[in-house]
């Protein structure tokens, strides 16, 4: 558990945040200038806050009230930067082992061979960073931070400098690190797809303050938070288990509310999957529609109807145990006279869930 309380005044900007990051991956999300990177720098000890306290488990890193401020090298961190910052004069192997060299003897460290295999960087070990592509560099940077036997992993937009294809390659690796790491991960991002795929906990920063915080599924399906996250990209999470691969190229997923068919998902049957459903792709019907091309029709209960400033309305639905957002026009909401508690049907096209919006739960 990481707990952070910071107060720091810059010229024209005041940072004032307080949050706890439970085990798993906590995303600091916000517009540029919201103070995300500043928080991470303060946690890393690269910035000394005016006031504040930062602690990981029972290790106090910063406590201005007691005059405690550990320098970065004594904080036991793994820091992944946006620009990988690999040491150009060292081989990939030496880069990976750099942090371990300084870790205290007997610190529980990740296994070198296992981590190298997980990140798929075995063939690169004897090269130098100058000969690596951007994606390869970032994998090595992840491994370097992970192998330093850290108490806390910090990732400052590690995917921002990569193209979509590289991102799609590296996201599953971060998911695996998240599930392997026994330490909290603090992850800075301004990309909702990344949040939806990776986050356990979401902290929404706005102008140096915590606007919202909570478990990611709850926050993403909260109509009141949608505006701050970006309406166009609003989408919520649904957890389903891969059940079968059908002969026509579709995969069947089992969800408590009913089966869901999607274009082929490459995973072992039984794997729990996290789907991000874009709010604008979820259609609503009062009765179970017949003669419709959409494959997925799930019974749902209206939980909340949230009219926005413009012509749109966000509807929060309970689909089985999951909360899902649908974005429809106000005219449609009025035509259907949606009210909380109403039983309706959510309609979802199989092809509307992009492969990048599917990851392990």
């Amino acid at each position: 558990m990481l707990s952070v309380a910071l107060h720091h005044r810059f010229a024209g900007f005041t940072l004032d945040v307080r949050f706890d990051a439970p085990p798993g991956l906590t995303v600091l999300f916000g517009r540029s200038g919201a103070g995300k990177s500043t928080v991470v720098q303060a946690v890393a000890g690269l910035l000394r806050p005016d006031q504040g306290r930062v602690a990981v488990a029972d290790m106090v890193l910063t406590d201005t009230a007691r005059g405690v401020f550990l320098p970065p090298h004594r904080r036991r961190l793994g820091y992944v930067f946006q620009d990988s910052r690999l040491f150009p004069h060292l081989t990939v192997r030496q880069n990976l082992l750099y942090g371990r060299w300084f870790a205290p003897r007997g610190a529980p460290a990740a296994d070198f061979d296992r981590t190298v295999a997980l990140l798929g960087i075995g063939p690169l070990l004897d090269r130098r960073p100058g000969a690596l592509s951007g994606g390869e560099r970032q994998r090595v940077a992840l491994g370097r931070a992970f192998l330093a036997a850290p108490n806390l992993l910090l990732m400052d937009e590690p995917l921002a400098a990569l193209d979509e294809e590289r991102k799609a390659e590296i996201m599953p690796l971060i998911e695996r690190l998240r599930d392997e790491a026994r330490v909290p991960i603090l992850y800075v991002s301004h990309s909702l797809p990344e949040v939806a795929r990776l986050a356990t906990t979401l902290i929404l920063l706005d102008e140096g303050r915590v606007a919202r915080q909570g478990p990611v599924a709850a926050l993403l399906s909260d109509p009141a938070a949608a505006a701050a996250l970006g309406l166009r990209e609003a989408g919520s999470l649904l957890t389903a288990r891969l059940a079968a691969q059908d002969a026509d190229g579709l995969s069947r997923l089992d969800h408590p509310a009913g089966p869901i068919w999607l274009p082929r998902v490459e995973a072992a049957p039984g794997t729990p999957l996290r789907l991000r459903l874009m709010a604008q792709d979820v259609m609503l019907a009062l009765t179970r529609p017949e003669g419709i091309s959409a494959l997925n029709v799930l019974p749902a209960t209206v939980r909340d109807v949230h009219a926005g400033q413009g012509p749109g309305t966000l509807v929060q639905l309970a689909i089985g145990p999951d909360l899902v957002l649908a974005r429809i026009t106000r005219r449609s909401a009025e035509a259907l006279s949606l009210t909380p508690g109403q039983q309706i049907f959510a309609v979802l096209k199989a092809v509307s869930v992009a492969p990048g919006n599917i990851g392990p739960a």
Partner: protein
Amino acid sequence: MTGWLSPAEAQAVWLSLKVSALATVVSLPLGIFVAHALARWNFPGKQVLNGLVHLPLILPPVVTGYLLLLTFGRKGVIGAWLDQTLGLVFAFRWTGAALAAGVMAFPLMVRAIRLAIEAVDPKLEQAAGTLGASRPWVFATVTLPLILPGILAGSILAFAKAMGEFGATITFVSNIPGQTQTLPSAIYAFLQVPGGEPQAFRLVLIAIAIAMTALLLSEWISRVVARRIAGA
């Protein structure tokens, strides 16, 4: 060597190599430290230190030599103290020639190393810190290897400058054959006597050869280092 050079000439060449090597080796750690301080730290008196380091570059060498004589001479403030406590004498000794050469070459060495340090991305040093390396370790494992080409360039520049140092040396330690007569002093001395020109010319050729070798060596080393860092 003796077949071609007279003992006096060989002595001058050997002495010059010895003086320049000592001057370079001894001033190198201090040069790295000062370059690092000037490149990375902010402290009161930074400009004064910068000026002091560069002074020998702009002062007439004779003035530098005379100032050395005043401070490091037998009766000089530091010279007298060193003589009494450590028994170390600079005036009119080859060690004095090394001191003069070192002082004169110091600005060139510091400039080259400082440029190299300024070219190192501080973000890399920061990254090393987050991975658990304390400041001295960051310097030893990241900064130092990355500035190696600059250190080599600075050293060779300093060595070459030391080989050619004349004014301060002759002022501080005079021109005593076998004691303080370096290559340039010997050339000067040979040119002062009738018929000394062939000897002077041989020494000139040697001076050119040494300088060229040093230059090519430094080019080659920095290319090797650069290739190693570039990867593959």
